[in-house]
C-alpha cells in the first residue's frame, strides 16, 4: 500500500524541507537552492537514463556539463571580429584537418583489410595531421590570444540569445557522447567508468588551456541572461508598484514617510532578487517538465519495452533481433545530451563560465549519489534524488559547522583544536555524502522511489 504513496510522500517531505529554509533563513536562499536542485534533477535524469535503463556507468558527467557550459558561451557571447578576421580561417582549417583525420582513420579502420597497410595509413594520417596543425593551429592561437587578452583574447561566440544554447548544448554533448560511445561502449562497466572519467578530465583540461576557445582559466563573465536584471527591476515602475501592493500593511504601519521609503527600497531590492530567481525557476521547471514528459512518452512506448527487455536479458534480446550495442549507444547519447542541457542552464544561472569550477566530486559523483538514493531506473526517483541530495549538500556545511560548534562548546574559544575543527567543518560534507551513499546502497539499494514493475 505504501508503494503508491512513496513518490508523493517523498516530494512532500522535500517541499517541507525547502519551506523550512525559506521561513528560517530566507526565501532568496531557498529559491537559490531550488534552482540548483532543478538543474541537478535534470542531470540526474540523464544519468538515470544511462544507468537505470542501460547499465552504463558514466563517470564523466562533469565533462558533459562543462561542454554544455561551453556551448552557452559560444552561442551567446558577441563575436570578436578582430580575432575572426585575423586568425579565424586558421582555426577553421585546423578544425577541418582534425575532423578529416578522424574520419580518415575511421574509414581506414573499417575498409582496409591488410593490417600492415592499415597501420601505415593510420600513422601517415596522424603524421600529416600533426604537421598541418603545427602550421595552422599554433600561430592562429597565438594571434587570437594576443588580441585584447585582458578583456577577450578569444574568438567569442555567435551572439544569439543564451536560451538557444540550452538546445544546442544537447546536440554538442550528444555528439561528443556519440564519439566516445562508439569507441568505448564495447567495454565492461568498470572500464567504461574509467574511460568516461578520463574523457571528462581531458575536456576540462582543454577548456582550461585553450584560451582562444573560451579564455581558459581567465573565465568568461557577464554572460547574457534570459531573465531581467535585478538592477533594472529596481528601477521599473510596475515592479515597484507590485512590491508596494504586496506589502501594503507593512508599509502603512510606518508613519514617517522617509522611513517608509527606505523600507520600500529594501523590499524592492529583496523582491528583485526573489523575482529573478523565480523567473529562472519557472524556466528551469519548464525544461524539467519537457524532458520528463518526453522521456516518459518514450519509455512507456515500444522503445521503452525494448530497453527493458535488453536490460532483463541481453542474450535473449539479441536473439530476438535487438541490436544491443546500438541501443546502448543511443541511450548514452540521449543521457549525455540531457546532461549537456543542464550544463548550459547552470552556466546561464551563474552568468559566467569558469572551467576551474568543474570538479569531479561536485559534479560526477554527487549526481551518482542522487540517482542511487533517489531510485535508479525511476525518473521520479531521480528528480527526488536531485532535490534531496543537493539540498543535503548545501545544508550540510552550515549544519556541520553548527554541529562542531556544539561539540566544541566546552573548549576554550581560541584553542587550536577548536580552530582546526571549525575550519575543517566544511569537509564533513563529503563525509556525510559518502555515508549517505553507503547507507543507501546497503539498506535501500532500490532507492527511495524504486522502479515499478507493473503487471499491466
Amino acid at each position: 500500500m505504501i508503494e503508491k504513496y512513496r513518490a508523493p510522500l517523498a516530494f512532500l517531505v522535500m517541499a517541507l524541507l525547502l519551506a523550512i529554509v525559506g521561513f528560517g533563513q530566507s526565501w532568496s536562499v531557498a529559491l537559490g537552492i531550488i534552482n540548483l536542485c532543478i538543474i541537478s534533477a535534470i542531470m540526474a535524469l540523464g544519468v538515470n537514463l544511462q544507468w537505470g535503463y542501460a547499465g552504463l556507468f558514466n563517470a564523466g558527467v562533469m565533462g558533459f556539463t562543462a561542454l554544455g557550459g561551453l556551448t552557452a558561451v559560444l552561442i551567446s557571447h558577441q563575436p570578436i571580429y578582430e580575432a575572426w578576421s585575423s586568425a579565424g580561417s586558421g582555426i577553421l582549417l585546423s578544425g577541418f584537418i582534425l575532423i578529416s583525420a578522424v574520419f580518415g582513420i575511421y574509414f581506414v579502420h573499417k575498409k582496409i583489410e591488410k593490417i600492415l597497410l592499415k597501420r601505415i595509413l593510420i600513422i601517415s594520417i596522424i603524421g600529416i595531421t600533426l604537421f598541418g596543425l603545427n602550421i595552422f593551429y599554433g600561430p592562429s592561437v597565438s594571434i587570437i590570444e594576443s588580441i585584447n587578452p585582458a578583456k577577450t583574447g578569444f574568438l567569442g561566440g555567435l551572439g544569439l540569445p543564451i536560451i538557444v544554447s540550452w538546445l544546442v548544448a544537447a546536440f554538442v554533448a550528444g555528439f561528443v557522447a556519440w564519439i566516445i560511445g562508439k569507441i568505448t561502449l564495447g567495454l565492461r562497466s568498470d572500464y567504461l567508468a574509467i574511460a568516461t572519467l578520463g574523457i571528462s578530465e581531458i575536456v576540462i583540461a582543454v577548456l582550461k588551456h585553450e584560451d582562444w576557445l573560451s579564455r581558459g582559466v581567465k573565465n568568461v563573465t557577464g554572460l547574457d541572461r534570459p531573465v531581467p536584471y535585478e538592477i533594472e527591476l529596481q528601477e521599473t515602475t510596475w515592479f515597484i508598484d507590485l512590491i508596494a501592493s504586496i506589502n501594503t500593511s507593512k508599509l502603512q504601519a510606518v508613519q514617517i514617510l522617509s522611513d517608509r521609503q527606505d523600507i520600500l527600497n529594501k523590499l524592492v531590492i529583496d523582491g528583485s532578487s526573489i523575482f529573478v530567481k523565480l523567473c529562472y525557476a519557472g524556466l528551469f521547471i519548464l525544461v524539467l517538465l519537457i524532458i520528463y514528459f518526453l522521456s516518459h512518452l518514450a519509455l512507456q512506448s515500444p522503445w521503452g519495452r525494448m530497453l527493458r527487455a535488453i536490460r532483463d536479458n541481453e542474450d535473449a534480446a539479441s536473439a530476438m533481433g535487438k541490436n544491443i550495442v546500438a541501443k546502448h549507444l543511443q541511450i548514452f547519447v540521449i543521457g549525455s545530451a540531457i546532461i549537456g542541457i543542464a550544463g548550459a542552464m547552470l552556466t546561464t544561472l551563474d552568468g559566467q563560465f569558469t572551467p576551474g569550477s568543474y570538479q569531479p566530486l561536485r559534479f560526477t559523483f554527487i549526481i551518482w549519489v542522487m540517482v542511487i538514493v533517489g531510485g535508479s531506473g525511476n525518473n521520479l526517483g531521480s528528480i527526488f534524488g536531485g532535490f534531496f541530495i543537493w539540498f543535503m549538500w548545501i545544508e550540510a556545511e552550515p549544519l556541520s559547522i553548527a554541529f562542531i560548534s556544539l561539540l566544541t562548546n566546552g573548549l576554550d574559544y581560541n584553542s587550536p583544536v577548536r580552530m582546526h575543527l571549525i575550519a575543517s567543518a566544511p569537509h564533513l560534507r563529503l563525509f556525510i555524502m559518502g555515508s549517505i551513499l553507503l547507507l543507501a546502497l546497503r539498506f535501500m539499494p532500490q532507492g527511495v522511489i524504486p522502479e515499478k514493475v507493473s503487471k499491466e
Partner: protein
Amino acid sequence: MENFDILNALILLANFVIVPAISYGSQLAIAALGITIVYAVLRFSNFAHGDLMSFGTMTAILFTWLFQSLGITGGVLPTALIALPFAIVVTALLCLLIDKSVYRFYRKQKSHAVVFMIVSVGVMFILNATVRFIIGPNDRTFFDGEKFLIRALDFKASTGLEEGLTIKSTQLITVIVAIITMLLLFYFLQKTKMGKAMRAYSNNEDLALLSGINPDRVVMITWIIVGALATIAGVLYGLDKSFKPFTYFQLLLPMFAAAIVGGIGNPIGAVVGGYIIAFSEIMLTYAYKKFFIYLLPEHLEPSGLTQFLSTDYKFAISFIILVIVLIIRPTGVFRGKTI
C-alpha cells in the same frame, strides 16, 4: 655548443626525462600493484585507492611529526622512512575495518562488480573527508634529511659538461624502496603458502575453496597488502613532490591506466604499466628543443619548443594510452585477470 654533442644531449635527457620517469614510474608501479591485487582477488575496480594512499601518507606525516618532536630523526634519510612501518600498520588496520563494515556485506550477497565499484566511490568520499578533516587541505612537505645525492653544479664541475645532472635522494629512495617492495611481494606470492593460496583464490574461487583455502584469511591478507602498498606508494610520491589530499584523486587515472595497460590483475603488468605510463607522460610533454640543438647541425635546429603536448595535458596522455590499449588489446600487455 658543439654539434653532435652526444654526451650533453644524453645528460640532458637523463636529467629531465629518464631519472624523473624512473622515479615516477616506480611510484605508479607500487600504486598500480595495489589496484591490480584488489582486482585480482576481490574482483572489482577500487576507486578509493587514491584516497587510501592519501590516508596512508597522512598517517606517515603524523608519525613523522611525532618522531621529530621526540627528537628521533632519520639523519641523512628522511624521518618518514622510520614512520613508514607504523603508518603501514595503521592503514592496513583501516583497510580491514572498511572491509568488515562495508565490503563484506556485498561479498556475501555476491553482488555485481559494478556495485562494489559504486560502493568504493562512497568509501572514497569518506576517506577524502577524513584526511582533509584531520590534516587540512593544504600542501605539506614532510621531507627532511639530505636532499640531493648529486647536485647539478657539482656534476658540471666534476665532469666539465655543460649539462648538469641532479639526482634527489627521494628519487633514489623511491627506486630502492620500490624494488624492495616488489621483490617482497613477488616472493610472497610465489613462494609462501598464503601467497599461493591468494593466487589460487584469484584464479578459481570455487576450486580454491574446495581445496580448503580459508576465504576470509585470503581477503584479510589481501587488504593488509593493499594497505601497505597504498601507504608506501603515497609516501614515496609525497616525499618526492609534496602532500596535498587532492593530488591522489588526480593520480587515479594514471594508476588505473598503468594497471590496465599492463594487464589488470597481473602484478608484473602493474609494474611494467607503471613505467610505460610514467615514461610516456614525461617523454611526450618534454620540450626537446635543447636536445635537438645538441645533436643536430645548426641549420636543422628547431625553432619551436619541439614539445609534443603541453604539460597541461600530461594526464591526458595516460588516458589516451589507456583508450588505445583498451581498443587494441583489452587484456593488456601481460594478459590480465588473475594473479
